[in-house]
């Protein structure tokens, strides 16, 4: 792998304009308003894996950062060290995007720390954005004080795109890099790999780099060979 060309990756591509909104346009607009507006309510994004939660949070961070605000994206599933301590040590930003709120459900001390962070950010005039697989009431949070505060957010439900839409998006993204993905390759990818766009886009990165390095057209045998570890 080490002879593959280095790519400039996310966050460059995870911007609002690269988000394929489909049915989720209202959710995108709600996030954008919160990023722009002073007193728009905070937003809770709810949707299954692959529905675009992380993309939207990253896009929000970028937009706010470009507007001169201090931002941080914090995936609660991947905290370093004990969650409670990590959350208690967080803050100090104008915009804080908290991904994977599910990860804290049932961890009483961590939930309490998030409850405190919520209050602290509110008092300091900072903005919080949240994302989780389900709406706050269904996450299985044990601290009612936290659940009710998250319940006050604007709830933006994200639906995963249909397979047809995902194919279109993937094809367009590939075209933007000068790769032609024909139906056979798309069929193969959808049959053999995770179907959410995040995973598929990462796969596309890999295919792109490999085809560049090998100077080969993207065909089913090429992709199969690459992804089965035979490159």
């Amino acid at each position, binding site marked *: 792998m080490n002879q593959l060309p280095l790519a*400039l990756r996310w*966050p460059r591509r995870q911007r609002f304009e690269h988000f394929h909104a489909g049915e989720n346009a209202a959710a995108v607009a709600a996030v954008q308003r919160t990023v722009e507006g002073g007193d728009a309510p905070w937003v809770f994004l709810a949707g299954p894996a692959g529905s675009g939660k992380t993309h939207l949070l990253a896009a929000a961070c970028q937009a706010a950062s470009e507007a001169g605000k*201090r931002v941080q*994206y914090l995936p609660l599933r991947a905290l370093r060290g004990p969650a409670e301590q990590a959350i208690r040590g967080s803050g100090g930003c104008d915009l804080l995007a908290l991904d994977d709120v599910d990860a804290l459900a049932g961890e009483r001390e961590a939930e309490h720390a998030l409850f405190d962070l919520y209050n602290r950010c509110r008092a300091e005039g900072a903005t919080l954005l949240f994302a989780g697989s389900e*709406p706050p009431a269904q996450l299985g949070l044990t601290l009612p004080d936290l659940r*009710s505060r998250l*319940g*006050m957010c604007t709830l933006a439900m994200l639906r995963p795109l249909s397979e047809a839409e995902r194919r279109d998006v993937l094809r367009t993204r590939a075209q933007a890099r000068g790769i032609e993905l024909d139906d056979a390759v798309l069929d193969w990818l959808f049959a053999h790999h995770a179907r959410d766009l995040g995973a598929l886009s990462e796969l596309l990165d890999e295919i792109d780099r490999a085809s560049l390095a090998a100077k080969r057209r993207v065909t089913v045998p090429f992709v199969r060979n690459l992804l089965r570890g035979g490159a």
Partner: protein
Amino acid sequence: MSDLWRRCLERLEGELDAEDLNTWLLPLQAREDEGALRLFAPNAYTLDVVRSDYLERIRAVLEHLNGGAVNVHVSVGSAGAPRAEKPASAPVVNGNASAPATPSHNLDPHYTFETFVEGKSNQLGKAAAMQVAQNPGRAYNPLLLYGGTGLGKTHLMHAAGNLMCQQKPGTKVLYLRSEQFVSAMIEALRAKNMDAFKRRFRSVDALLIDDIQFFAGKDTTQEEFFHTFNALFEGKQQIILTCDRYPKEVDKLEPRLKSRLGWGLSVAIEPPDFETRAAILLSKAHEKGVDVPEDVAMLLARRIRSNVRDLEGALNTLAARANFFGRAISADFAQETLRDLLSTHAQAVTVPNIQKTVADYYQVRLSDLLSKRRVRSLARPRQLAMTLAKELTEHSLPEIGEAFGGRDHTTVLHACRTIRTLMDKDVRLKQDWDQLIRILTG
């Protein structure tokens, strides 16, 4: 941004996981100072991670880009202002010599008695808070407001503080969340500064502390709060506290503290009833400049019973979508857009769920509850369960009758009327009802 840092980030972008980059490195701010690069982390947690996981690599990349070693410092702070970051959780304090312009309180001006929607569930609390505000230190001391989350305790507390300041400008009111009290104390202990801590809390005219249930199990905090409480009480300075339940029911709260909390007046704030929920919703909509017709307010009030925050969340969600689609908020629009949100509240409440909850509550067997037996010990819970089913679900009377062992719809209707009438007279039954609603919709 420092050019050197920008180039360093570009290099790291290629080698680090994108998510890590976004989480740990993009929030850093940089400033070049006489050959040194100063990096500022927004908080202590980021600082720790950057130091332990990335600093070495950053140094190496910078050295490579710069063609020689670069002196790198990382600290918590901001590149724009070289001053030290203020401790995040320390409360704003009055009479702070370094900030003479701060007002004599740190209250939220939006929380007033005028913006508080009164109903049966909270009118005692409101009356008590007003009396305390009009006669601080003398009417009821302490005033303790207790009840579930999101029912308006904090609103009343701030409203009392705001009214005190309005009636007597210059009144020193200090509002804190309980954890701010805890961290202020820990900080004072660490800095060996307890005298200043004591002075600060004992020099106010009114001390307002929110959610004191979180003092549970924190013995040193309780000890210190106990002394603060005594000093304020003796000085006839007002104390207002909130708690999520009657303090005697809070575990790991010292008995002597519990007993003092009972010296003044404790008032329960109950979940708002249907009319109050609708009125709250209309009032919030008005505040936000959102046009919500009465039938929509009633629709939401009927479906969302848990607390005021959930109502506000529903309103926010509705307003955001109406705004995006350029549509007026009609009952149809509300039904359609809030399907997801409402279903999260409605989901837990099904007829079988109600039956099981009621059976558990009264410790009767589910099969007995659904049987034809008519002994009082079964009939009353059964009637209550039917009424709850009518109240909490969208099922018709015949459907509910069917679900209760194939009874006629007139039986259900009779049950609903009986329970309604009894609740006005029978306090015990009313308590059971409220408790069951809380269990089913909480």
